[in-house]
């Protein structure tokens, strides 16, 4: 369980990224976080694996105070949290399977990672993860030769290879076309349901958020302004609040004035 208690985050330049966040997310939930760019969606997600520090309040994951971790304990903690990025963050100059195999690097002695020596078991496990996201046939292709959707799936396979309990996804479909975006969201949904992995996803596509997530959190200027189920909510008013009256339910911008 992820629990935010009065969490705040002030950047060194004085900007308040998060204000008084209170949130409880149970294991196995699929949560979409929506809001304008700069509202604090990324900051919120990145505090969970401590890629960003919180500056006030308490953030616990499975009872562990995230801010109490450092060095080795922090790295071990991060092992159970996967992260997916908008720009995939793959090693483009190398093959797909090698990208997935990097998930094992933190548990390996340095000389094996330095020379890229992986055991047969590790390779089979990496291939299984690629199979789970349906791109087993691309295993030995260079990562930069794949389409955006395929690259995001490689990233997803890499994350699965570390056996996470939680996956944090920072705008995973923002760089993808609508059809591919739907497929990737479908992958997330399947992983969420089949493996009971908690998924937190930042997303700009409101339609995708409502279609795939169970719970939607709306953020505006660092504050949670909505938190409720994806189904059965009166969206027009809620979206009006989250997006400060600029967007309708289909995600179209409203003409001002």
């Amino acid at each position, binding site marked *: 369980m992820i629990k935010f208690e009065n969490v705040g985050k002030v950047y060194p330049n004085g900007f308040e990224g998060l204000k008084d966040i209170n949130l409880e997310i149970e294991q196995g939930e699929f949560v979409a976080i929506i809001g304008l760019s700069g509202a604090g969606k990324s900051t919120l997600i990145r505090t969970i*694996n401590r*890629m960003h520090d919180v500056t006030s309040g308490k953030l616990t994951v499975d009872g562990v105070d995230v801010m109490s971790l450092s060095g080795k304990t*922090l*790295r*071990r*903690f*991060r*092992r159970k*949290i*996967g*992260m997916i*990025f908008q*720009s*995939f*963050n*793959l*090693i*483009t*100059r*190398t093959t797909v399977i*090698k990208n997935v195999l*990097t*998930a094992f*690097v*933190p548990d390996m002695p*340095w000389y094996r*990672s*330095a020379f890229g020596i992986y055991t047969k078991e590790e390779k089979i496990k990496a291939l299984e993860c690629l199979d789970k996201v349906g791109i087993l046939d691309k295993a030995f292709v260079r990562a930069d030769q794949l389409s955006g959707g395929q690259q995001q799936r490689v*990233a997803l396979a*890499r*994350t699965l290879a*570390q056996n996470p309990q939680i996956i944090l996804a920072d705008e995973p479909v923002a760089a993808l076309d609508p059809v591919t975006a739907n497929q990737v969201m479908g992958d997330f949904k399947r992983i969420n349901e089949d493996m009971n992995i908690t998924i937190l996803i930042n997303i700009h596509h409101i339609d995708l958020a409502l279609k795939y997530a169970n719970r939607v959190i709306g953020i505006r200027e660092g504050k949670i302004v909505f938190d409720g189920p994806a189904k059965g909510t009166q969206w027009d008013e809620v979206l009006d609040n989250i997006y400060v009256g600029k967007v309708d339910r289909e995600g179209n911008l409203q003409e001002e004035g």
Partner: protein
Amino acid sequence: MNLTFYDKIFKPREYVLPNGKKAYKKASRAPIYAILILAMSALSVKITGFDMEVLVSRIGQFFVILGEMFPPNADYMPKIWEPLFDTIKMSLLGSVVGALLSVPFAMLASTNVCPSKIIVSVMRVMFSLIRTLPTIVIALVATLVFGLGTLAGTVAIAVFSFGYIGKLTYEEIETVDMGAFEAMQAMGATRSEAFISAIVPQVLPFYLSNCLFNFEGNVRYAAVLGYVGAGGIGLILNEKISWREYPSVGMILVALFVTVFIIETVSRALRKKLV
């Protein structure tokens, strides 16, 4: 639109669209730079005492000496082999040692890998200092420390390679896509694990290519190092020029030319495959 003093003299070009809207393209700044460069060149002619008359009247001597080198003295060839191979050995060993040593320091000089700004600046100053020292000066110092011979030459080339490859490598590391590095850290990898897995594969081809290019150049540098007694082909080149044995000098130059040509051709072919 912001108009500077320059724009007020040289008016921006105006484009008018059919609907009456306008776009402006500011006048080029190139003339300023052209005038600056011309002025600096004129100044350097004055300072260096460059004299066209001397150049024209003495240029003939160059061709006289060149003419005396032909035909090269082929009988001298057996005596060239050893210093020639010394030169190649010096440059190869020096290049490899310098390039390998430079890697950890290049890591510490990259802002995206090394978190401490102080270490980064210290490393960069060190690299700049080393590159400021001309190789021939390092060789001269090395002969004083290690005595005359190829060891001094090897050290000089290693020091030069260290500075040269180090600078190119840290600049390469800084242009790398940090996404994969971030992903590795988010997975619980240490900075060094993330460096090895995410940055090395991106930098390695350029690093190897730079190493080859450096080696190529070092063969030429190494040829000169003999002048200060640091071993290699420069030793006999210096000797034969002082004795005015131009046909032998010609032979040395031909041997050097062929060697450099072969090394450059092989290196270029390899580098093409790398990048």
